[in-house]
């Protein structure tokens, strides 16, 4: 019991110093947690992918379209359940900084493949009836204040001209990882308009989304699809939705690595601060430790005192830091709008924060504890701060 009392008293002796150290720890663990969550958000697309969905795109690159008539051939491949054409639209809403993803999709098959986009039945019916209708996600609707019936004007970049869409339905997230910052509209509307404006670019689609009956045969079905179009003018590349999404993330990997690295740098910074606090504390109390030893306490006890104090400070800082990660993460995600569609602090992140706190507490105390444990009584009693 005395042991814990001593640790508590020691920790509170220099109130200002302890408070400053804890503050530093809180800032460090908070930013560590946020950075880890940003990295997680980067991968959210891959995590939200379903194993029974495949993406078929042009083998040359994603920017080169596929002919629309490929759909029937893909559908005929054994094991394929549903096929939907989809196009990345890249329209600008008022200003380029209001970025959010927009897709032209074949609505009926598409939404049957994505049950995680929860739609009210009557709203979805309205959307199907309106050629210029659009479906928007809840988060997107909140960010820009879209309501059912509102007109969303977009300026095309890939598809030139001005495009007006009428919000007919708002979808909710069916799962925690579901991205609700998207806008969908009718693929046919895009195609019909392109037929009038740029006949050469009509009847083409960016990708096909393919649903398979049997997840275990996904790889074989991918190969079968690609085989259909071998040596044609537009060869295809079919991969699982997850592989497709990871392909994106991998191309920006340098940034992810940099953020990861930096998130560990902050731990080193705080380690330096914490180790410094413990070193000063132990140096000032060398006389006391010598007294304890003179009273008969062993070097292990003295070392345990220092480790205990260091761990206690680290624990307090870490707990406050973790507790703050959630509200501040939420605020940050709100400020960032649709940039991070899914921003959830994972249990893994919390575990990492706790593990780092433990490591910082132990490493910071290691040198001072060794010194205090090894100090000779006479030498210790003679020393002054």
């Amino acid at each position: 019991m005395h042991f814990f009392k001593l640790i508590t008293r020691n920790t509170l002796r220099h109130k200002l110093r302890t408070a400053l150290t804890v503050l530093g720890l809180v800032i460090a663990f908070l930013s560590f947690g946020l950075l880890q969550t940003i990295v997680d958000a980067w991968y959210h697309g891959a995590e939200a992918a379903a194993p029974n969905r495949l993406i078929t795109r042009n083998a040359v690159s994603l920017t080169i379209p596929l002919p629309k008539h490929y759909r029937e051939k893909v559908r005929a491949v054994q094991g394929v359940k549903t096929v939907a054409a989809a196009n990345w639209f890249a329209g600008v809403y008022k200003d380029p900084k209001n970025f959010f993803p927009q897709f032209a999709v074949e609505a009926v098959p598409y939404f049957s493949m994505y049950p995680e986009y929860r739609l009210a039945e009557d709203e979805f019916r309205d959307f199907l009836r309106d050629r210029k209708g659009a479906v928007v996600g809840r988060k997107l609707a909140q960010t820009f204040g879209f309501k059912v019936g509102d007109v969303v004007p977009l300026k095309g970049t890939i598809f030139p001209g001005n495009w007006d869409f009428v919000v007919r339905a708002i979808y909710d997230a069916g799962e925690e990882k579901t991205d609700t910052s998207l806008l969908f509209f009718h693929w046919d509307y895009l195609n019909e308009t392109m037929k009038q404006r740029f006949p050469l670019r009509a009847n083409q689609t960016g990708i096909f989304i393919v649903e398979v009956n049997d997840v275990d045969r996904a790889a074989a079905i991918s190969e079968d699809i690609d085989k259909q179009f071998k040596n044609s003018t537009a060869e295809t590349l079919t991969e699982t939705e997850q592989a497709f999404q990871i392909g994106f993330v991998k191309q920006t990997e340098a940034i992810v690595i940099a953020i990861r690295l930096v998130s560990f740098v902050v731990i080193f910074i705080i380690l330096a601060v914490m180790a410094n606090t413990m070193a000063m504390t132990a140096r000032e109390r060398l006389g006391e430790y010598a007294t304890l030893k003179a009273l008969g306490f062993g070097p292990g006890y003295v070392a345990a005192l220092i480790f205990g104090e260091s761990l206690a400070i680290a624990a307090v800082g870490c707990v406050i830091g973790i507790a703050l990660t959630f509200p501040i993460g939420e605020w940050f995600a709100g400020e960032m709008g649709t940039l991070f569609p899914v921003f959830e602090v994972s249990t893994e992140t919390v575990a990492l924060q706790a593990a780092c706190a433990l490591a910082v507490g132990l490493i910071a105390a290691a040198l001072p504890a060794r010194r205090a444990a090894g100090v000779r009584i006479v030498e210790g009693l003679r020393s002054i701060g």
Partner: protein
Amino acid sequence: MSIPLRYTLRNLWTRKLTTVLTAGGMALVVFVFAAVQMLDTGLRATLVATGQPDNVLVTRRGSNAEISSGVDRVQAAIIESQPEIAVSTDGTRLVSKEAVILITLPKRESGQATNVTTRGIGDDAYSLRPQVRLVQGRAFEAGATEAVVGKSLAARFEGATVGSVLRFGGREWRVVGIFDSGGAAFDSEVWVDADQLMQAFRRQAYSSVIARLTDAAQFDALKARIEADPRVTLDVKRERVFYEEQSQALSKFISYLGLTLSIIFSIGAMIGATITMHASVSNRIGEIGTLRALGFRRSAVLLAFLFESILLGAIGGAVGVALASVMQLVQISTLNWQSFAELAFTFTLTPRIIVVSFVFAVVMGVIGGFLPAVRAARLKIVDALRAA
């Protein structure tokens, strides 16, 4: 009268572990601060080096990148015939009509399929871009399915060396040369013959037209005329401006993230400095009393402690900048969101970054050391001597 510098220096020296830890924390902060700025500078340098000041780049109106643009042959001919366009030595206009297509190539080490810009170039492409030099092999023959590749692409991608073959668009393109564009974005591109590329992909339209102006000042006249011409719907931009815009999103992301991190981290480091300086004051209350009794003024005590903290910051700054300068050896390659293709750039250290980082470190020292120094200066002589 001021307290001798040696007093401060020796104090830092006596408490080596504390000095190293505090300055080390600051050094890491300065390192992050400097590295982020170097990255942003490197990115901008790459894209600014890509554009020539007297070149214009024409794309379809509203398309922000070359890959989403289309300029048909008639429109390209209209651009070519404008009076502001310079004439080359052989009497033709200095114009390159280019087709840009993204292909995916596997990276050499990871095998990761990555988007690569493939540019079909016209006859004058090399004269329009004097920074491009062939460093290995030769230029491709007009009309042949041959390719030349940029030097950073050659270093990172499978099949991008002289003599090997790239397969795309249903054809095999033999790599016959490697070019160096002096750190410009072209270093990450594949160049082939424009007509061959368009045939391979059955494209009817060019992506962009690059032209040299007779005089950079002619730009406004050309822009006004083209934008008023009802036959074309095109955007005319200075080449340099176009490439600057290409990097905006990435550059903004890097600098915002970097600034936020630097501020948060610096709070941590300043707390470290404050803790150290507070301890430094507490341990020397007796000494401070003695100094004051000897006749040193409060301001002298304040300055001595503040100087100690500044010195800590300066050490941290020097170490941090030194660490950051090592980063110049590292090349970063990532997807540029606006052009949707791979872009390689380096950490670039400029004198300005060195100065700013160093000042940043010193300011951290001043802020961290200010309160403890004030506390030392406000001690009453009698109390201080009694405490000793």
